[in-house]
């Protein structure tokens, strides 16, 4: 996890839940424990999360929301069932099932629902030229579903350093969907703009005011497309909604590996006059987004706060566990 080898909000969330799952399974309450649930939270959950966040890598919004969920699942355990932790597996089973259900519903089904919605409502139509940036699971689902329904469209994939994630999306779309693809780097964006009919972007997090926190470069793509009056749609599962608002992109950002941005001939890192800043995320203002597609349907970016209220009451109320 610390090496940033697992990329993407969905992947990190899944892995977090798997890790917490293992930690919970291994937990053994001491005989003096008064309330097992309280103990799990303080001895297992909070310290682990804190360790991963401080020593390995800052958590994503998706991880934060998943963590809030796990805490409330533990707190919601029946007291008696929890107290029998050592003798019966029931509590462990309940927790295991709720966590698996969380991933199933909020990630997998959400992705499928979004993919079906985009095709059912004919948002992707014959003749469309769809532009996308970087690689997001939900975007792959959407495009593959449209291809499955024999919609005639083609995709322009825009990619850039430091991660060049677009290449894996390209591979997926070609191998699994046989979709007509064009691959360009970010600097060629203005050349292809003429043909583009729709823009589909993924997100790492949806902030409360409708701005979109996503892979670095997304804001560039969105602003260029909006200027040319293309519809910019952001596809994101609702569990990625954050109750916070960010005013600029540097806050809570992360640095990747500088070598991904600038390859130097010698391994001499002692050049004091040169700072390489390999930022991983940026913030796209709500103005550049025409609509946000979630498993609840499509809504304007200004309504993200309303959705948060309806869907994640714990994240809305809790300002500590969340992002």
């Amino acid at each position: 996890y610390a090496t940033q080898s697992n990329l993407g909000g969905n992947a990190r969330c899944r892995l977090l839940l798997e890790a917490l799952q293992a930690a919970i399974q291994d937990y053994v309450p001491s005989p003096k424990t008064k309330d097992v649930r309280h103990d799990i939270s303080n001895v297992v959950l909070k310290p682990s999360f804190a360790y991963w966040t401080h020593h390995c890598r800052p958590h994503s919004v998706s991880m934060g929301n998943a963590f809030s969920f796990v805490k409330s699942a533990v707190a919601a355990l029946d007291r008696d069932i929890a107290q029998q932790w050592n003798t019966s597996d029931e509590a462990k089973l309940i927790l295991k099932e709720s966590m698996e259900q969380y991933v199933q519903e909020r990630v997998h089904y959400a992705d499928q629902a979004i993919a079906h919605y985009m095709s059912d409502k004919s948002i992707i139509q014959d003749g469309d030229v769809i532009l996308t940036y970087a690689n997001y699971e939900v975007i792959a689902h959407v495009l593959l579903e449209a291809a499955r329904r024999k919609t005639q469209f083609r995709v322009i994939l825009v990619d850039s350093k430091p991660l060049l994630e677009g290449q894996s999306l390209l591979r997926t779309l070609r191998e699994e969907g046989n979709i007509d693809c064009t691959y360009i780097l970010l600097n060629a964006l203005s050349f292809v703009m003429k043909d583009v009919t729709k823009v589909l972007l993924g997100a790492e997090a949806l902030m409360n005011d409708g701005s979109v926190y996503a892979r670095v470069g997304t804001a560039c793509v969105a602003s260029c497309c909006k200027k040319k009056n293309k519809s910019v749609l952001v596809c994101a599962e609702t569990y990625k909604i954050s109750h916070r608002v960010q005013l600029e992109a540097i806050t809570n950002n992360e640095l990747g590996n500088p070598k991904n941005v600038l390859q130097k001939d010698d391994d001499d890192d002692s050049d004091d006059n040169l700072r390489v800043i390999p930022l991983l995320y940026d913030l796209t203002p709500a103005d550049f987004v025409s609509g946000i597609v979630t498993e609840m349907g499509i809504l304007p970016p200004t309504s993200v706060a309303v959705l948060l209220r309806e869907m994640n009451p714990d994240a809305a109320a809790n300002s500590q566990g969340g992002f």
Partner: protein
Amino acid sequence: MATEQQQKEEDSLVLQDLKKNLTRGMALDDKTAVAMPVAAMNALLGVVQRTTSNTMMGLQDELKEASDQILEWNSTEGTRSNISLASGCDLFLRYSTRTFLELPDFDACREAILERGQRFAGISLAARDRIASVGHQFVGEGQVVLTHGGSRVVAALLLKAAETKHFSVYVLEGRPDATGAKAAEFYSKAGIPTKILLDAAVGQIMDEVDLVVVGAEGVVENGGIVNKLGTNALSICARAHDKPVYVAAESYKFARLYPLSQKDIPSNTSVKLDFVDTSSGKIELVKVPDAVQVHHPLSDYTPAKYITLLFTDLGVMTPSAVSDELIRLY
């Protein structure tokens, strides 16, 4: 279930009801005139009254079928906007589901639907009055109000404003159905100084205008509106000159649509267009070869960014609040 023959009679009954409702009166101040969604709801009420079904599922099916028929009829033979009819039908169906959740007993539920439905026409008139009372305050003394389309809601709003203020009204001609001329006649007779403009004069006159007020056939989820053709261009021009654009619409016009561009709004163009040259004082009909395509949709879509505020029976709201209301309703 009804036989084929009965089914056919049932079909025409629904459409008969609808047509009866629609032709009741088109005058701007006619209190008995009904808006499209209300007409649709009255027609669907007829279905509820006549139903032989005694389960909610059965009734829902009948209502769904009736509303499909209404929409199909309108898209082939009707001349009005599909959106307002669709939103009216949708609202009725949603309301009946909601009532059923509150009153699981079928007969009680049916009674409740009928009772509320019959009150609806009255509710919609009250909505118009409420909109007029919040909206008229935005018209100032001595101002020039530009309007477009034949909205009864806007008419009510401007009449209310005229009770306490002096102002003048500019109306766009509104080809090809002369709504502008009809509206001008109405406002003039009401004692408000009125000017008719050619549709194309919008850019030239905008400096003199203080505010724009239009109605809506439908209000869409992202806060945009669907209204008579020309509203989009008018709004873009107004915003470019920094003039506010206000939309007066009842909340039952909020539709669950999210258009991304003009072509996402279907529009029927069954009316044939004539081209006349009146520059020489006489009316000269200009014949155009059949090979020439004529593009004249009846409505267009105005995106939320060109709309300043909406006056509704729920109060004055910004375009982004429309989505909040819809999320709450659903």
